[in-house]
């Protein structure tokens, strides 16, 4: 039950949004987040609990790469 999965917001109607879970559309309560159409949100127990930050996601991947090239150089 603690599982939380990403989904893309398709439409918004007040506190309720339709979101795409990899091809399956379901409604999601978005009153805990500030989400707009096109955002990816993390959904837990029917509620979006946070919006996924694409820029940070890119930065994380970049950080992973740097971490490893650094280690290569240091090894």
């Amino acid at each position, binding site marked *: *039950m*603690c*599982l*939380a999965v*990403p989904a893309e917001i398709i439409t918004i109607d007040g506190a309720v949004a339709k979101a795409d879970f990899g091809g399956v559309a379901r409604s999601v*309560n978005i*009153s*805990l*987040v*500030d989400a707009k159409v096109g955002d*990816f949100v*993390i959904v*837990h*127990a*029917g*509620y979006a*609990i*946070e919006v*996924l*930050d*694409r820029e*940070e*996601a890119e*930065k*994380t*991947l970049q950080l*992973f790469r740097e*971490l*490893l090239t650094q*280690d*290569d150089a240091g*090894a």
Partner: protein
Amino acid sequence: MFRLRDREMSQKILKELKEMRLDITLMHVCGTHQDTLVRFGLDSEFQRVGIDIRQGPGCPVCITPPQEIETTMALARAGITIAAFGDLMRVPGKRQSLGDIKAEGGDVRIVFGVDDAVDIARQSHGEVVFVGIGFETTAPTTATALLSSPPDNFSVLSFHRIVPPALRAISSMGEIKLHGMIQPGHVSAIIGTAPYEFLSEEYGIPQVVAGFEPLDLMVAVYLLAKQHSEGRGEVQNEYSRVVKPAGNPTALKAIRDAFTPTDAIWRGFPVIPESGMSVKNELEIHDASKRFSDTIAAAADAECIEPDGCRCGEILRGIITSEECPLFDRKCTPENPIGPCMVSREGSCHISHRYRRTRLDKT
């Protein structure tokens, strides 16, 4: 969407870790972390490079103590409609499970979230009780429902729990020496990173908030190993694509407005101060513990014991692994679970059972 299963990068990290010649124990407190670790065989890869990872009290159904299971069943037996997450159904109580009561004709409904329970209440004239289990990830959803003027026949049995006090309990009990903690990404999405700092400050424990892809965990473990070998203990955030340092302020406010922290028992633990959430007095008409206090008092007085031979408590404290329980996969299986750690899909025993024979190189 984001390719975080890169095998080549994982191999590099493992090589690095091997060269560090480690002999350390880490803990995480999340069923989804355990799932990733076991499903992709990362737990044994880490063991090969001297890193033992234990699942602590990170499975909401598992840490729910027998008293609360009995309380829920007492309400169901009294004819009240119970709306609960599916994982709770088969947790064995003293005589039966919620599922047994349902099979005998009790009105027990499986829901995916609190809003389903509110809908059931709207369509019914009878009393509907939502069983609120889960950590800070789930609590704001229950809080939002409580604060959104639900119907009068809707109430909540709040068994929600707060994670940081349990981390303090694990560290101060001193039964297990931890060299680092992987903190749960989705609890942290709500609470942020500050509530973990005391662990590093007071106990010197390295900590990394981590996401749930294999590479997230690889990097988190690597960062912990680095902190350990450099003698540092601080909170790092590997999951910044979801976790903001201050968490989710709207969700935190909902928790504050709906609940008051209260002392609570976790299965396998003594009472942990301020680790539970009781429904605020202002919302008491929706507090099942007040609404049905007589039925609940009778259940709470009854003797509540752990199932015979079940070692979930020790698993939740990180002292043993599921495979070390003599009943694991013999007398205790998901078809015939003895304890909650084999019932819940987030329980360590269920996860070990699920992937034991299938974990070979699926990355």
